[in-house]
Structure formats: C-alpha cells, structure tokens
C-alpha cells in the first residue's frame, strides 16, 4: 500500500490512471480514532495488477473528489461522507446513500452510538440454561462500546 499526502490524492490517482490502471476498485474509510484514513484501490485490466493507495486526513476531514478521474468513485465518496463524516471537496453527487436523511452522527465512526445495537435485545444476553439467569453477570455484546448501556443502577456493567 502506498501512502500519499492528502494534498496529492487526486494527482496520484490520476497518475495511476495514466499508468494504465483503467478500472476503479473501491474507496474505503477507516476510523483510526485519532484520524480518518482513506484507502483507494485501482486495477490494471491488462495484467490484473492492483494498486492500493492510502491517505490520512487532516483534522478538517476533507479529501478532494476523484470522481472526475474514476467515475465509479462517486458512489464511494457518498459513502465516505455519509458513514465517516468526510467532506469530499468537489464531489458532484452528495445525496445520502443508505440513510434517509443526513441527520445524526456518521454511522461508521467509532464514536457514534448505534441506536439499534442499544435497543435490539442481544441474543447473547442470557446464560446457558434458563435457571442460571438469576445470578448472571451482565455481559456486553461485540460492537457495543463501554458506556452505551446504562442499566437502572446507573452502572455500565
């Protein structure tokens, strides 16, 4: 994976296209907690080789759109905006992708509390055997961060 400064994002990907990487693969966001990383993959159809490129966004969480270089990137840039709260500068299409509105926190940020994970009963919240339930210790599900569940006594555990 090649790491490039965010200021070179468009020129680096345009250089990939000039080097024969004619197919767009995908763009993914990664919440590294201290920053957002953006990864793109492009493929050269002649020899099926793949180039992976990554950039770390500054605190303004902005990246320039590459949709004018690779048209297919537009969909993934909408995803970046919606799920990671990334500002895609120069994106032609900023309609929400899966969410019906753009209200609420970006879904894939680790800091976002996922309402469904709190409200849906967790199938793992029971002990093996019905009669063992009385003295069980409450467990927290995978994907539910500390502090999301507050029981009546006000403690998380």
């Amino acid at each position: 994976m090649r790491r490039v400064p965010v200021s070179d994002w468009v020129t680096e990907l345009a250089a990939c296209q000039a080097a024969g990487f004619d197919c767009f693969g995908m763009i993914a966001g990664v919440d590294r907690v201290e920053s957002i990383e953006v990864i793109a993959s492009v493929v050269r159809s002649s020899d099926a080789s793949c180039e992976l490129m990554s950039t770390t966004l500054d605190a303004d969480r902005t990246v320039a759109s590459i949709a004018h270089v690779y048209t297919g990137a537009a969909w993934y840039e909408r995803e970046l905006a919606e799920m990671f709260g990334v500002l895609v500068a120069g994106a032609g299409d900023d309609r929400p992708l899966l969410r019906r509105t753009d209200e609420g926190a970006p879904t894939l940020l680790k800091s976002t509390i996922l309402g469904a994970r709190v409200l849906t009963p967790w199938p793992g919240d029971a002990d093996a055997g019905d009669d063992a339930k009385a003295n069980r210790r409450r467990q927290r599900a995978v994907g539910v961060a500390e502090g999301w569940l507050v029981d009546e006594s006000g403690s998380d555990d």
Partner: protein
Amino acid sequence: MTERVIPPNAHSLIGLNPEACTSCMICVRECPVWCIDLASHTHEVTEEGARRPKVVHVLDEFTIDFGACMYCGICVDVCPFDALAWSSEIDPSAHAAGGLVHGIDQLVKWFPASGS
C-alpha cells in the same frame, strides 16, 4: 451448456450438529450481526456411583437468520465442540422477510456428514 458445479468445500451455509452443541452461547455472543439465537434448559442427571447429580444443558432451540448472516465463519471457528460446520448446499431463498431464519430441524440437515 456448461455444468456449474459447486465445490464441496464451498461456504454456502452453516450446519449444526445438535448432539455436539453444549449450549455454551459462545457462537451467539461472538456473531457480529447477532443472527444466532438459542434457548436451552438445564437438566440434572444422576450417574450410577456418582456422589452428586451433574447438571447438563439441553438445547431447545437454535436458529440462524441467513438473511442477516454475512458468512464470516466466526461461529464455525469459535465453537469449541465443532458443532457448527460449513455446508456446500445451495442456500435457499424466501418469499418474505424472516423466511431465512432456520432452526435445528433444517440446520441439522446441513451439517456435513463427515464434519467440516
């Protein structure tokens, strides 16, 4: 016409061997999409010569919702008793939401005869 053959090691579905399952809940808790559910009860068995009866778990219900399952295989990997295994059967379709929730009766048929 080209014959399309599903490789025998394809990861198409997950089968359950209820005889091997101890209702330990590990798969239920590790499944990232919460699509496994089980119910069990405890039962005391007194073995001849034993000083105290031993408590065994009896599996009552076990369901996997293949409409939500993302085929990550974590449940197959974490089961300490090899009670879950990949099956290469073609996954069925359904006409309504919830139609891909399959219980023990169906899951046992998908458990491969020789284990995973």
